[in-house]
């Protein structure tokens, strides 16, 4: 082919090359973006699907006050376990007539603690933690913090427990 045609051919291929690089890059970015969109579109419903019971539990746990029906009949010197939202808790009617409500989750590693009326203490079987049943203070063993107290109000219908 002639000199002119050769030059035109080189110029065209150079022009194509200049176009090819941005086109390639655009293709890669578009592909990646579309892929991310699909991942999000698939991932979001799956996350919400798996998280539904968690959302439900959190809503239930957001309770501020509960009424324990007939709990006012609890004899002195005894206790009962109940659920405050999602957490177990102890309602204790002391021998002197006072009432205490404490969160039953041991502050050490999360085991549910036990009220021992005869020993006048709260005891954790897992690692031997001991708490005061009136104040919830950590007396002995590994627990680093006291048990959380709830506010207690005794009525004719039962006992109202609320966040202190």
């Amino acid at each position, binding site marked *: 082919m002639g000199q002119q045609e050769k030059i035109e051919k080189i110029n065209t291929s150079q022009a194509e090359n200049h176009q090819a690089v941005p086109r390639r890059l655009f293709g890669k970015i578009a592909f990646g973006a579309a892929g991310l969109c699909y991942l999000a579109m698939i991932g979001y*419903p*799956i996350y*919400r*699907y*798996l*998280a*539904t019971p968690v*959302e439900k539990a959190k809503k239930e746990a957001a309770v501020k006050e509960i009424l324990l029906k007939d709990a006012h009949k609890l004899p002195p010197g005894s206790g009962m376990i109940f659920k405050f939202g999602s957490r177990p808790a102890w309602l204790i009617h002391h021998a002197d007539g006072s009432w205490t409500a404490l969160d039953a989750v041991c502050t050490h590693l999360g085991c549910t603690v036990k009220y021992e009326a005869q020993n006048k203490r709260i005891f954790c079987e897992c690692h031997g933690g001991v708490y005061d049943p009136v104040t919830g203070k950590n007396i002995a063993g590994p627990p680093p913090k006291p048990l959380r107290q709830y506010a207690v109000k005794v009525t004719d219908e039962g006992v109202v427990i609320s966040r202190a």
Partner: protein
Amino acid sequence: MKPVVEKIYNWLDERIGLNELVEFAKKKTVPEHKHTFWYYWGGISLLFFIIQAFTGALLLIYYRPGTEAYESVRQITYEIQFGWLIRSIHSWAANLMILAVFIHMFSVFFMKAYRRPRELGWLSGIALLGIAMIFGFSGYLLPMDELAYFATKVGLEIPAAPADAVGGLIASALGAVGIKAEWLKTIGTELSSLIRGGVEVNEYTVQRFFTLHVIILPAIFLGILGFHLWLVQKHGNALPPSEEAKPPSERKSVPFFPNFFMRDLAMWLIALNVLILLAAMFPWDLGQPADSLKPAPAGIHPEWYFMSSFQVLKALGTWFPGVTGEILGIVIFTAGLILWILIPFYDNTNQSGLRARRATWFGLFTLAVLVLTTIWGYLALK
């Protein structure tokens, strides 16, 4: 390759022989001709199976078999966030998978990709189709709503009587030569009862179907699927007779990586989009809970992929009442199935002779019968 990637690659290659795989992948080609489109359908079937495994696992997180089946599906459908969507995708993909498998099977048939040396591919494929249909049948019961209950009830009772009839026939034949086999007379009913875990569909049935659907069938399916896919890699895509007739120099092919792979991916994307659109726009419903004391609802019928058998058995039972119709039905089905399965041994060599033409006509005939009886089945529902 970046130095880190290269190090990892070499580490793996020394231990699992990555080089062999990469060399194979580089050399893998796909024939390019006017029928290349049909090569996608095995992969699309596989895509739907993967989606089923995935959404099935998600459903398994909240589904409870046995007595709480309906309630758990009700919660998934109406209370769990996007539960309706996961369930809808699972139900739609089940149907689309079976459709894709049928398209795959028929395209394999007409392209004569069952011929030597691919006979085992054909046989394993038929097994996979059968298992897929049992997947569908067992999964259908799991919500335990009215539709599921009656579809299963009828589905297990319809073949029982014909099976009893055939068993009775064999028992008579054996009796004539002095062998007592009275139990054969009720073989169909007994098998159905064994499958059901009772004389009617109950919570044991759900539990059994659940076990089948979630562990037994997947284990068997995956084993055969692995074999099936390995065979495809070993033998490559089959050439249809029109390509076989051309001299090798005239045949075209494309590399699998990246060319055909990207095309495959595009087809998968289209299939996925179709599925998502259908699942979101036509969500799967939940009927009333199954009640054994209620009569079957009007127009009760199985899913479309069982409609053909359903209609044929129904029709034969009406035209030839009694034992005759039942035996005729089983004989026709079994004969047809055997002929279909054994086609690679009839039309085996790469020639376009009489057998090749007959096989093609048989395929067209079967396809027409399946499509027409399915449509007839729906028309006869009223």
